[in-house]
Structure formats: structure tokens, C-alpha cells
């Protein structure tokens, strides 16, 4: 063809076929509710359509049991219902097919999520049931004891389960209050003309067991807002998805997916699913609802007036403000937990009593992590490491992404790029630094690869619907996926992390689990087909949302084994499920280097924290794209307060290590990272608090100020523990930010010590050198103000205490310290102090329980500086007891780096050890 002609033709074609925006491309790749038969069916249900009534109510094994039968049709099989009370205000409702009626197969119950000790020792054995008539019900309802303040009610007809306050009888949380409960029972064979298969974008789901979905409504009484059900990039307070004025909204989807370039404002589910929702209201406080179910779930938050068309059959106590929600799942059973609260921290504690407390991380893991796809080779690693030192920027962990492997075979090293991995790790370890390598669940189908050989031989792979090893496509090309639902396979996998097995690994190497949704490039919705088979004939659809959880668990257990149970594992996972907090950290996946993603990281992490995942972070800088230096600096300033603080970038982005944007930006990022290092003792104490109470490191304002209504939907600021409030700067050109400071006490600017009154919105000038951060009056925060290469060198460094006095000239705070590495803390090997400042005297008390084990931890660390903010008067001297030593009180800097530091009252070198009891009296 004539080249000119060809040129014009091509030009014409390329114009004619110019691509649609990539957004629409993604949207159609994923199913919406209308393309998801169970969701579409469930969403069309109307209030009162449930015809179930509870019958044959009795006590059995300390639980209340009953049958759910159709009011009008006695031909169907009844469902079995079990209601159990647990300590601390947890009610569990299980509804399943009744095994005595021989259902075609056993429905999947998610194993290994509910703590064994919860089931074994927290159960309250019900001795008796009381009956009571509700309204003008024909049937009597059954009342069950929950705790001193709450009781549960099983209403027989219409069937409803709710929790109410014992004294006021006010409902707090109810299931099927609107009569929308539906449970599709398994059938042996298809009915005439019925199609069980489902198709979506060229994928066929054989759905051999037919429809088996479950849906029901849950009402949160006295709630102003509901929160939770991660993971999605959206506001903290969940907006209604159905109701008047909301026409086209999708329900919140819980289905773990690898969503390429996810949007910053979408109800669409991302990499993890935690089917746990909390509510909060000014009058009532908080309650929580958790549905343990790993199949695809869709949840509607119903807007006010959504049931206006209701003909009045459903009568709810109208005096109570409430938020109704509608829960739909494709498979599984009803295994639901009601948490009575009443405070936000109570709900989180109750939830984590079921699913487990967040693991206690090693000290190093709470510091700054440096990652990139990919640090190319050993020389690159050495140079990046050296540059941090050259610029006096602390960091603790250097990460290697998939390119470090030999052909994407995990546990192997590219021989050219990483010829001496162990030596490389030892060099880092000599500076007290650690390394993390990536290990994903897709296994390269390469007959020379030992993992693949063993997995094939042992039948450890997930099978496809025909029973063959499922073969999908991921980084290595053709891959199979280990069936981590099986404990035997998890144990086998765990052994692969031993130093002997993982060649080139050293004890300072930790692990990163990515792609564990699982991500399958050529699978439906970039994941595994729902009719794939796991051990015990479990269908993938039943276990999907927990696949990554089991993989995370197996990896974490592997590291635990590697260290003979003495070394706390560190495993970062992208996918998650209820309970993932027990196995390590998570991050918000492949975000984008723009201001919107910086902004949305706050509600995303707050939501994760509320649902147990305290140790979480977003990629600092944004994974895709190149952040403007201003954005990058702001991201470091915000990221310094993320529980998990890691810089990461896609391989196509420009290098963005903190020293690459000019002297000033280097300085700003160094300061941001130093803020984190300085606050590490405080952070570590918070990690321990999360580890013992479930209360997350990062908290929404309302968790600390549950009766301050203005704070209820704030998600541009957050609390770090109970003492610090941080407000991000999310706009490149922001000159001012308006910061709401909740509560009645004052707040002190972290940098300048300037006080601001609580309960006000402050319009504050924004400086480039920090984002707004404040210490609450009445708190004591610990810092270490010496900046080292990494946390390892900080061990012996002295502390600084910053006391922010409240209006009664009082303050208190806690400090937790242990060896930062082992499990000795479980047997008493830690220091836990409470500092109380009252009537001009600061006292340090031991609050560690006595006799918690044989291990002991001690440190010679002293306090080098005590700073007093607020109405401390004009003390000149401080008397330290024991010893009756006098030390000076003078004015000194609040912060030792950066600009804008002011002179504040400082007790200089009191010379007291943090491990001992002492008092310091000011005069």
C-alpha cells in the first residue's frame, strides 16, 4: 500500500476508534448489583415479605434454640436457629439449614476466625428463658439475658431478634425488624426450566448447587451514623445507598478484588472485606453488628424514609431514631454477632474479643518503611540505604517487590540482580535495619520449581470446577493457587519460611503478601472463579473473602515457626478479612499519587481501625503516578501518623526517595519522618493498647469524644491515641485549614505549644513545614528526641515527656516498653507506667499487673526532659524523689528540629529512670 495512503488510513482509524475513558472500562469489568442475581433478587424484596416464624423454642447446651418455619407453608424444611450470649455483651445468632432434614450439602461455616477461647470460655450458659408479650403480638417473645444492662429478645411472630436495654426496654440493635429475612435453601435438583449457571463477561459460573443466598435487615437504634464494612475508598460515615432521592446507587460491596487504579470516591469494594458495622449516636452511643460470612456480600444503608411505602404492617418504636441496613450474601450461613457497646471503644473491644486482638508488632515495624517496585539490585539497595544515612533520614525497613525473584518464583532470588541476598540483609542488619520480600499466593507452574512440584504432588492447589488444579494467570504467567483454607497446607507453607528452606533469607527478613484476594489476571473480575473447589468440597464462592486471610495467617504462622515462637512476625497483606489483625499489617493497595487519594486515605484507615485492623497504612506518595513534590511532602507529613508508614511507588513512576526534590523538600520530608521517630514511644504504647483492648492506634474523633456531635462525621482529621489530633492538608494551594477541635479542654499545637480552646473550629494558617497537629490538654505524651539511623539505635536513648495540663492543672499518660521483638511481653517482660501530674507533682506508677509471668524487662533509659504546657505557673525548681535531688526548671525548645519552636517550661535532666517509681515536685 502507498505509505501516504496507509498513513492516512491509520490516522483515520485511530481517530475513529479513539478509546473510551478508562473509567468506563473498569466499571464494566466488575459486576454491579443488577448483574449479580442474588443481589438483584434480594434488593427487590419488600419489608414484611418474610414469612418465617420461630417455633419450638428451648434451651440446649446453654443456648436458646428454635426452628424457623414458614407461616403459611409447612411443606418446606425448617431452619435451625441458635442464640447464644457471651460475656461482655456479645450475642451470637446462628441460622442454618437443619441437618436433621438432610440438606443436599453442608453450608460453609467460616473456620478459624472466631477465637477458640471465645467459644470455649466466654459463653454464658443460659439457665432459663423468660417470656413476654410485645405489643399486641399473638405469640409470646422469649427474653434472654445478655449482661447486667442488656437482654436479647427472640420474637416468634413475626420472627425478629433484637437487643434492648434491660431498664428502658429500648431496642439498640435488631435483625429482621422489617421482615426482609430470606434464606434460600439448597435443593437437590433444578426445578423445571431453571437455569443455575451464571455468566459474566465470558466467564461462566457453573453454580452446581443453585441459588443459596441469604439476606436480612439490621436496624441500629439511636444511631446518627453507621461506619465500618471496609474496604472501600470512601467517607468514614457510610452514606445511604437506597431510599428517597437515591436512585442509582450501588450497595456497598464486600468482595475482595484487585481493582486497577481504584477511584477515590466509590462504594465499590476493594482488596479486603470485613463485614462488621458500627453505629454511633449522641443519645445511645455505639453498637456493632458482625456477620461472619466469607461469600460475596452486598450491604445497603437505607436512607431515611426508605420504607415510607410500607403499609404500616411493620411497627417500630417510633420514638427512636435509627438507621436501617440491608445485608445480602451469596452463600454460607447466618452467623451474626451483636455488640451492645455502649461506648465506641466497648464495641471495638467486644468485636475483637470474637475475632482477635491486633498482633503486637516488633518495634522496628512501627517505624518508617521504604519500598518501591522495584529496588533493582543489590547495588541499588546499598545506594538507597547509604542515601538515607547521607541525608540523616531515619528508616527501618527496605522492601523488595516481585522483581527480586527468579522469574516470579517466590522464595527465590534473581541470580544476576541479587547474587548475595543474605549478605545484603546482613549489611542492613548491621545498621539495625530489616528487609521485607514479597511472597504471593500464585505459584508458577514450572516443573523445576520446588514449591510447584510439592504442591502438585501433594494436591495442595485449589481445583477448578472439573477437579483439576486450577490454572490462572498472574505475574509468573500460568499459575496455580495454594488452598490455604486447609490447615495442613498452611502448615506446609509455613515451613517454607524456615531459614533452611528459604535460601538467601536471614532472621532480619520479613514478608509481604500481595495479590491474595486472590488476584487472577484472567479470572472473572480479576479473581478466581466462584465454582473453583477448596478442600472439603468448599466452593470458592463460599470462602472467597477469607482466602487472603488464610494466606496471611499461613505466612505469619510460618514466620512464627521460623523464630521458634520467639520472634514476632511481620507480614503485610493486601487482602483481609475479619480477624486479619491477628496476623499483621495491611495497606490500602494501589492508590494514586493525587490529592484525592491522600484525602481518602484518612477515612479508609479510620474505618480499618474501627473494624480491628489497627496496623494499617496507605502508600505514601501514592502508588500510581508521579506526585508533585508538594503532594509528596504533605503525604509524608500525614503518613508519619499512619499506623503503618511506608513509601511505595509503581515501577513506571519516577524515583521519589525523600532526597530527590531539592534541599528544602528533603528537609521537610526528613522532619516529617522525624516526627514519627520522635513519637515512636507513644505509638508503641498505642500499639500495645490495641493489642490488649482492640482500640485502634488511629481513631475517629467520635471515638474519643462520643458525645460531641460535630465530630461524628469528621474524617479529614483523626486522633492518634487519646492525646493527639492530626488534620491533613489535602490541597496544594491551601493557605488555611479549618480544624475542628472537639471536647471542652484546650489543645496545644504540637510544634509551637500554642493553646486553642476545645469545642471550636479554628481557621489556621498552613505552613509548608507541618500539618496541623495538637496535643489534648490533660495528657502526657512520650517522645525520644534523638534521631538515629533506625529504631535499633534508639533503644538506650532518653525520653522526653510532654505534659499538657488541662484547666484543673492535671494530666496523665501511659508508657509501655518491652524488648520490641520477642513474646516475652506475654509473660511479664515489659514496663508499663502511668504518669500522673496533679497538684504540681508528676508521679510515675507501675501499672503492669503483678505476677503475669516470669519474664522481666528492664532498661536504664532515663527521662532527659519534661516539658510543661498549659497553666503550670512559674516553678523555678523541681524536687526529685527518691533522692531529694533538685533540678532546674527553665525555658527550652518544644521541638529540637524544624522551625517555629517556642520556649516552653522545661525540667532539665531530672535523671529519673522510666522503669522506676518516682515523683517530681515543682516549686
Amino acid at each position: 500500500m502507498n505509505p501516504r495512503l496507509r498513513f492516512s488510513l491509520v490516522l483515520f482509524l485511530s481517530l475513529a476508534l479513539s478509546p473510551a475513558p478508562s473509567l468506563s472500562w473498569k466499571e464494566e469489568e466488575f459486576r454491579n448489583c443488577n448483574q449479580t442475581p442474588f443481589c438483584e433478587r434480594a434488593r427487590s424484596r419488600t419489608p414484611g415479605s418474610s414469612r418465617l416464624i420461630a417455633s419450638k423454642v428451648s434451651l440446649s447446651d446453654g443456648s436458646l434454640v428454635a426452628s424457623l418455619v414458614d407461616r403459611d407453608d409447612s411443606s418446606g424444611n425448617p431452619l435451625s436457629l441458635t442464640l447464644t450470649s457471651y460475656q461482655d455483651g456479645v450475642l451470637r445468632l446462628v441460622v442454618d439449614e437443619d441437618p436433621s432434614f438432610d440438606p443436599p450439602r453442608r453450608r460453609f461455616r467460616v473456620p478459624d476466625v472466631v477465637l477458640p477461647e471465645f467459644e470455649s470460655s466466654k459463653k454464658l450458659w443460659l439457665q432459663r428463658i423468660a417470656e413476654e408479650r410485645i405489643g399486641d403480638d399473638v405469640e409470646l417473645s422469649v427474653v434472654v439475658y445478655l449482661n447486667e444492662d442488656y437482654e436479647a429478645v427472640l420474637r416468634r411472630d413475626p420472627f425478629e431478634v433484637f437487643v434492648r436495654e434491660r431498664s428502658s426496654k429500648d431496642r439498640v440493635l435488631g435483625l429482621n425488624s422489617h421482615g426482609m429475612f430470606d434464606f434460600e435453601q439448597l435443593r437437590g435438583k433444578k426445578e423445571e426450566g431453571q437455569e443455575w449457571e451464571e455468566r459474566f463477561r465470558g466467564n461462566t459460573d457453573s453454580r452446581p448447587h443453585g441459588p443459596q443466598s441469604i439476606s436480612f435487615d439490621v436496624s441500629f437504634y439511636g444511631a446518627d451514623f453507621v461506619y465500618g464494612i471496609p474496604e472501600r475508598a470512601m467517607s468514614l460515615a457510610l452514606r445511604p445507598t437506597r431510599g428517597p432521592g437515591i436512585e442509582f446507587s450501588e450497595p456497598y460491596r464486600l468482595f475482595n478484588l484487585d481493582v486497577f487504579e481504584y477511584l477515590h470516591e466509590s462504594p465499590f469494594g476493594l482488596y479486603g472485606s470485613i463485614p462488621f458495622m458500627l453505629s454511633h449516636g449522641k443519645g445511645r452511643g455505639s453498637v456493632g453488628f458482625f456477620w461472619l460470612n466469607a461469600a460475596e456480600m452486598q450491604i445497603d444503608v437505607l436512607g431515611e424514609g426508605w420504607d415510607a411505602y410500607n403499609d404500616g404492617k411493620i411497627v417500630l418504636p417510633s420514638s427512636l431514631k435509627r438507621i436501617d441496613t440491608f445485608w445480602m450474601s451469596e452463600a454460607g450461613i447466618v452467623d451474626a454477632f451483636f455488640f451492645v457497646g455502649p461506648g465506641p471503644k466497648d464495641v471495638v473491644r467486644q468485636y475483637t474479643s470474637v475475632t482477635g486482638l491486633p498482633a503486637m508488632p516488633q518495634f522496628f515495624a512501627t517505624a518508617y518503611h521504604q519500598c518501591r517496585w522495584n529496588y533493582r539490585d543489590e547495588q541499588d539497595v546499598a545506594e538507597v540505604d547509604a542515601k538515607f544515612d547521607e541525608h540523616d533520614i531515619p528508616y527501618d525497613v527496605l522492601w523488595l517487590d516481585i522483581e527480586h525473584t527468579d522469574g516470579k518464583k517466590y522464595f527465590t532470588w534473581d541470580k544476576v540482580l541479587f547474587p548475595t541476598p543474605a549478605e545484603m540483609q546482613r549489611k542492613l542488619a548491621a545498621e539495625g535495619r530489616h528487609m521485607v520480600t514479597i511472597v504471593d499466593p500464585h505459584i508458577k507452574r514450572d516443573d523445576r520449581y520446588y514449591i510447584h512440584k510439592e504442591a502438585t504432588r501433594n494436591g495442595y492447589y485449589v481445583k477448578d470446577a472439573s477437579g483439576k488444579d486450577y490454572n490462572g494467570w498472574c505475574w509468573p504467567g500460568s499459575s496455580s493457587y495454594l488452598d490455604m483454607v486447609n490447615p495442613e497446607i498452611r502448615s506446609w507453607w509455613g515451613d517454607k519460611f524456615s531459614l533452611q528452606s528459604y535460601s538467601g533469607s536471614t532472621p532480619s527478613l520479613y514478608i509481604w503478601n500481595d495479590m491474595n484476594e486472590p488476584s487472577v489476571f484472567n479470572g472473572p473480575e480479576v479473581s478466581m472463579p466462584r465454582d473453583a473447589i477448596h478442600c472439603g468440597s468448599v466452593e470458592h464462592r463460599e470462602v472467597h473473602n477469607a482466602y487472603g486471610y488464610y494466606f496471611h495467617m499461613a505466612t505469619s504462622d510460618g514466620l512464627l515457626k521460623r523464630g521458634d515462637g520467639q520472634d514476632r512476625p511481620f507480614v503485610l497483606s493486601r487482602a483481609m478479612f475479619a480477624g486479619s489483625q491477628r496476623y499483621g499489617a495491611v495497606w490500602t493497595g494501589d492508590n494514586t499519587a493525587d490529592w484525592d487519594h491522600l484525602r481518602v486515605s484518612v477515612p479508609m484507615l479510620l474505618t480499618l481501625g474501627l473494624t480491628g485492623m489497627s496496623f494499617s497504612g496507605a502508600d505514601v506518595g501514592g502508588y500510581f503516578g508521579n506526585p508533585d513534590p508538594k503532594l509528596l511532602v504533605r503525604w509524608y507529613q500525614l503518613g508519619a501518623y499512619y499506623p503503618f508508614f511506608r513509601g511505595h511507588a509503581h515501577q513506571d513512576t519516577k524515583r521519589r526517595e525523600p532526597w530527590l526534590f531539592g534541599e528544602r523538600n528533603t528537609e521537610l520530608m526528613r522532619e516529617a519522618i522525624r516526627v514519627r521517630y520522635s513519637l515512636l514511644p507513644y505509638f508503641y504504647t498505642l500499639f500495645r493498647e490495641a493489642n490488649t483492648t482492640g482500640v485502634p492506634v488511629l481513631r475517629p474523633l467520635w471515638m474519643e469524644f462520643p458525645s460531641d456531635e460535630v465530630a461524628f462525621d469528621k474524617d479529614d482529621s483523626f486522633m492518634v491515641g487519646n492525646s493527639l489530633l492530626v488534620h491533613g492538608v489535602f490541597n496544594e494551594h491551601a493557605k488555611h485549614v479549618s480544624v475542628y477541635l472537639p471536647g471542652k479542654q484546650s489543645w496545644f499545637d504540637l510544634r509551637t505549644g500554642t493553646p486553642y480552646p476545645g469545642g471550636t473550629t479554628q481557621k489556621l494558617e498552613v505552613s509548608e513545614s507541618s500539618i496541623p497537629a495538637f496535643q489534648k490538654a490533660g495528657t502526657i505524651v512520650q517522645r525520644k528526641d534523638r534521631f538515629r539511623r533506625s529504631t535499633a539505635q534508639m533503644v538506650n536513648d532518653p525520653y522526653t515527656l510532654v505534659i499538657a495540663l488541662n484547666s484543673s492543672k492535671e494530666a496523665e499518660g501511659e508508657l509501655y516498653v518491652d524488648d520490641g521483638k520477642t513474646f516475652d511481653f506475654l509473660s511479664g517482660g515489659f514496663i508499663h507506667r502511668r504518669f500522673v501530674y496533679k497538684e504540681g507533682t508528676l508521679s510515675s506508677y507501675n501499672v503492669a499487673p503483678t505476677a503475669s509471668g516470669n519474664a522481666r524487662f528492664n532498661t536504664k533509659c532515663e527521662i532527659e526532659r519534661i516539658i510543661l504546657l498549659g497553666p503550670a505557673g512559674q516553678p523555678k525548681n523541681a524536687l526529685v524523689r527518691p533522692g531529694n535531688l533538685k533540678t532546674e526548671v527553665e525555658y527550652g525548645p518544644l521541638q529540637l528540629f524544624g522551625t517555629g519552636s517556642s520556649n516552653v517550661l522545661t525540667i532539665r535532666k531530672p535523671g529519673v529512670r522510666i522503669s522506676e517509681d518516682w515523683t517530681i515536685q515543682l516549686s
Partner: protein
Amino acid sequence: MKGETFLHILLLTLIMVSDLFSRFVVGSSSPPLLGIAPQDEKYYQASSDGIKCRDGSGKFSKAQLNDDFCDCLDGTDEPGICSILFVAVLAFELWLLHEDDGSLKGTSACPNGRFYCRNAGHIPLVLYSSRVNDGICDCCDGSDEYDGQVKCSNTCWEAGKAARDKLTKRISTFQEGVAMRKHEIERAKLAIAKDEKELSKLKNEERVLKGLVQRLKERKELIEIAEEKERSQKEKEEQDRKEAEQKATEEKSKSAKDIDPETKEHEVDEGGETKEDFDNDIVGLLDDPVGTAEGDGDAYSLPEIQEAAAVSSDVVHDADENAASDQANEQGDVPVKPEELSKEELGRLVASRWTGEKVDEEIKQDSSEETHKEDDKREDVLDEDLYEDDDDGYVSDSVDDNKKYEYRDPEDEIREDLFADDNGDSTSHHTNYSDSDSDDEPDWEDIIVEMIWSWLEKTMIMARRFLRAFNLFQRPFDKSEAASVRKEYDESSSKLSKIQSRISALSEKLKHDFGPEKVFYSFHGRCLESKQNKYVYKVCPYKEASQKEDYSTTRLGQWEKFDESYRVMVFSGGDRCWNGPDRSLKVKLRCSLTDELTDVDEPSRCEYMALLSTPAACTDDRLKELQDKLDAMNKNEPQSHDEL
């Protein structure tokens, strides 16, 4: 950065020293503060008011000096072994008067503090205060770890010796390199002078030749008018004759046809086109009768001609490819129906979103590659079909661009065009050029100039002859004369265009930034290669850089400039990366005795780095720095080690 820190500290020192003398009267008799340099002692003498922090952020008492508590944000109160002063050589020498009794240790208390290790036997080091007592031995003398947590052995002598040896070696390389560099500068001067001389001669010549060509053109046009007249006359005669014949024939037969007007038009068109070609395009040389103009026509061998022809068609072809590959890129975003792909194809397609790998060609095998096949047309060109099938050539927007990406320097080509029979291939040009100071070899620049003049003279003589002959303006003119004029015109105008090309090439060349004293002159028109794993990297200063793998070439960038005071060459605007920037390359220059390209790396996606070792980077300044450093190290050798 390190340099900056050093300067910063030095500056501080000076400010401080002057400050000191202006504020305090010399002559205090109190005992010296150990570890503080004499001129600094005054600063640390406590008054009743205490000692001020240098940055004015506060003050501190004498007892608070180095007491492991930060009173001054700038670290004045925790000065290490007088960290600030001792960086300065002056201060350093003063320090030598003091005994190191180990009693004055800087601390880690101030984040902005610095710690100075004397490192006797090696070079002194200024550390961030964060390194003090952190359990890691940073100073070879171990002085940064004095709290007893770790024991650091003194390794300064061994390390210092190794460092001194290395430095000594480096200095000797530099010394030799500096000499080579000077030599290079001399040669560059000469070469530039020659270029300039040639340029000015060529410009003169161009002027002369322009006049000549103009006159020949006028002459030719006159001839053509005459010819035209004669021809139309003849035609008319012919027509008359034919008409007569036709009449005669028509009478016999009815099948004759008149075709003449068309023929005539055709001829005129052709003539016009040819003229244009001669005026504008070197390709016009195609028509140069071989062997008629004193041998220089021999320069145009067939393949070159075809190559030249290929270049122009190539442009269109490339633009075409460009558009095609654009389209292929965009296809990644076009909704692809998964049903139409195999499982593996879908897997690759989805993976490619993250990796940016082109999956289309892997799947369909018909999409163009992103990388470019090597631009070695010499063989392909001969087979046009083959050439068409190849995804060859560079993406370019215009003819000009295309020229830039030709492998050979246009200047060289013109040289060759003009003097191929005398000067051989381009490689030998470089050899000759770089050895042009050698007496054995003829200076080809001079030869060129001479040749041009001798040829020009001949031409002028011929032309004069013709012009004279035509002065008579006879009619009917001499046909052989007309042919000669035409030929002469063709030759002269083609010569003119060649000279003009040469002039523009030379001017372009001389416009380049050849660095201080034109030391980089010899890099013009040269390329350096480095093989790393499967890639061959090729760097042609002042031109372009590329990465070759088997038969594909990726452009890493076109020459942009020198950066960082001629220590870095920058190539930018190379082939675009998927989802990323245009490729670019920075070549760091390093002193060495030979020219060598090494250590090509891609630290950030599509941003390449390489190291070019060359004597051109061996500057006196650097040498002096190194010598000073060595002097400092040698001075610092502790006596006790001399017998070791």
C-alpha cells in the same frame, strides 16, 4: 550534598571566628577548655549570663557544655570535639596542638549537632550527632562510641593506608589525565581553527559558485528558449508536413490519430520537475552523469543513492508506523471483550495494566513493536519489499528529525560525498582526525580545501569558455555546446548544494558547546558503546544515545546539553515509555586515561545513567582537590604508626 555541608560548615566557622574576635578581647588567662579549639575557647567561656547559642535560640551555662542535653537547637552546647571548627583545615592544624584526652565528647542530644572524629591516620570525619553512641562504629578511630555499649577498634591506619593508596593511584591517573586533557585541548584548538578556515573558504567559494550557477542558469534558459523556438518551429514544420501527409493518408485511410499535443505537455512537465530537484535536493545527484565531472561523480555509488532515496520515503513510512503504534497503545484502553480472548491472552492483558508490557503483539503477532529495529538500512534498502515489511526506522515528525537519527553524521556524509575517493570511510576520518597532529599523515582538511580550489578553477575556466562562446548568440546554436552548458550547470549547481550542505554542517558543529577550552570537541561525531547483559548501549555525544537488543533499538534520547559544570552529559526526549516519561540518559564523566562507556543503569524507570571515563574529565581543579586531600591525610599520620 556533602560538598555543600562542608562549605556550610566552613562558612559557619568563618562567621564564628570573626564574631568571636569582635566580641571578646583576646588575652584571657583562664585555663583552656579541653577539646575546644583555641580561637573557639572564648566563645565557651561562661559569663554570669551564660553562653549564648549561636543561633540565638537560647543560652547555657558552662556546666551544660556537652552535658548530653540539648539546650541550643543548633547544637552549640553539644559541640562534639569542636565539630564546627575542625572541618576547616586551619582549625584542623590548630587542633593538632591539643592532646586528645577523650574527655570532651560530643553527644547525640542535639539533632542538628555534628560530631568530629579526628581519625588519626585517615581522614577526619564530621558525623551527624545521630551517630554518636548509637552502637555502630562510624569513626575509624572509634571515637563516636564512647559510652561503653560497643567497643570499636581503631582501624584508621589500615583504612587510611588503603585510602591513601587509592588516592595516590587516583592522583597519578589524574596527573596523566590532565596532560592528556591539555593535549586534547590543543588538538581541539587546531581542529576548530581548521574548521573555521574551511568554513570561511567554503563560504567564499559558495559566493563565487552561486554567481557562476546563476549565470549558467541564465545561459541555459536562453538556450532553452532558443531550443524551444527551434523545436516549435520544427514542430510546426513537422505538423505541416504531417498534416500534408495526413491529408494524403486520410484520403487513403481513416484511422490516423493526433497524439502530439500530449507529448509536448509531458515533456514540459518533466523538465520543470527536474529543475526543482536540482535546486533543492541532494537526491538530484542521482542524475549526475557518472564519470563526467573529473571523477567526483564516482562518489555516488548505487547503494548510497538508493539509501538517499529511501530516506525520503522512510519519513512517510515512519510517520505511518508511528500512528500505527499509537493506535496499538491506545488499544490497551479500548474495551476488549474478554470473550474474544483466550484465557492466557486475558491474563496477559490484565497484567499489562500494571507492567505496561505490550501484550498485543504477543497475542496477535501483528502489532508493531515499541522498540525500533536497528537502523541498518544498507542491506534492507536494496530489497524494498523487505524494507516495507520491517518495522524499521525511527519515529519522527519531519524530514529534519529524521536526519538527526541517521546513524552517520551528516557532516561526514558530505565529506564523503565530496571526497570519498580520497578519504575512505568515516571511521578513518575519525582516526585521521584524532591523530591530526601526527606529521606522518597528510592533513586531510588542507587536502579538501586544495581540491575544492583546483576543481573550482577548472570549472571556472570551462564556464568562462562556454559563456564566451555563447556571447555570439548565434542561431541556430551549436547543439553540443548546449549540452555542455546544461551539463556544466547541473554539475555546478550540485556542487553548490553540496558545499552549502557542508557549510551548514560545519556551522552546526561549531555552534555546539564543547565545554571549557573546547575539550569535548573530539567527541563530536563519535560514538561509544558498552555491552551490558543483552543490551548494547551506544552514546554519541552531540547527537543521540540508544539501547540495542538483538535487532531492535530503543532511543534513550537526543543530545541536550552538558550539566553540572560539564560533569554530566544529558540526552533527553528518547522513546516514550508506557505510562511514563520519555526516555532520557545522563552520562556522568569521570577522569580516566581512555575513553570508555560503562555502568549503564536505569535507576528510575526509563531514566538511564551511564559512566563515561575520559581524560577530558581530568581537570586541574579536581586534581588539586585530590592532592590537598592526600596532603591532609599524610599530615594526619600519627607518628606512632611510622614504624609499623
